[in-house]
């Protein structure tokens, strides 16, 4: 019974990670790729680690697995936020299908500050149109 639970959790986790990798390959731009990978990978790792906890059934292993899951849940969004911000400064192109980009032109390219409304175009060029280097 526990074996079935462990196997099922491992299978679900592995399949979610496979979907994350396929999404990483198929999605047209950086932000969509991060969307597809951050949580699918987190959920996938989470269920594999829960499977490890169930399989060993020891307190030490369970607490370590849970600590790792909490750590992943806390850090994955932070990493995605920093990477997305860096990508935006570098001028990563958004997918053609993108309907609207309300962030365009709101980063101050000199001070790296983000404003809540559009900056005057005279002082700064919009961040979204910078050349990729």
């Amino acid at each position, binding site marked *: 019974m526990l*074996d079935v639970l*462990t*196997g099922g959790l*491992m*299978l679900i*986790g*592995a*399949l979610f*990670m*496979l979907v*994350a*990798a*396929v999404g*990483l*390959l198929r999605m047209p731009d*950086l932000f969509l*790729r*991060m969307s597809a*990978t951050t949580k699918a*990978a*987190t959920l*996938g*790792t989470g269920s*594999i*680690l829960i*499977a*490890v906890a169930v*399989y*060993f059934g*020891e307190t*030490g*292993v369970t607490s*370590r*697995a849970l*600590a*790792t899951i909490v*750590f*992943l849940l806390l*850090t*994955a969004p*932070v*990493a995605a936020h*920093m*990477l*997305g*911000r*860096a*990508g935006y*400064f*570098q*001028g*990563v192109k958004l997918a053609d299908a993108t309907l609207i980009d309300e962030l365009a032109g709101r980063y101050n390219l000199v001070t*790296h500050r983000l404003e809540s409304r559009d900056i005057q175009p005279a002082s700064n060029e919009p961040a979204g149109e*910078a050349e*990729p*280097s």
Partner: protein
Amino acid sequence: MMSLEEFALFVILPILVVAAALAFVRLLRGPSLPDRVVALDVMNTLGIGIMGTYAIATDHAEFLDVAIALALISFLGTVAFAYYIERRV
């Protein structure tokens, strides 16, 4: 009927390795540096999953410690890369 250890070794690990190969294709293709960093991050996450699966396959709980260390290093690496990319422009 295969045992759980065989299931982990012959079904789960190949799936994860295929996923890692797909992520590696994205790492090679780019096109931009952040894309490659995302691919590396996914490969690190896959490494954590592989370590967990391997712990079950070999019945050694010690591999979980490797997974924890990998999770810590992976986060640091991604943040450092992001910082570097943002400072570079």
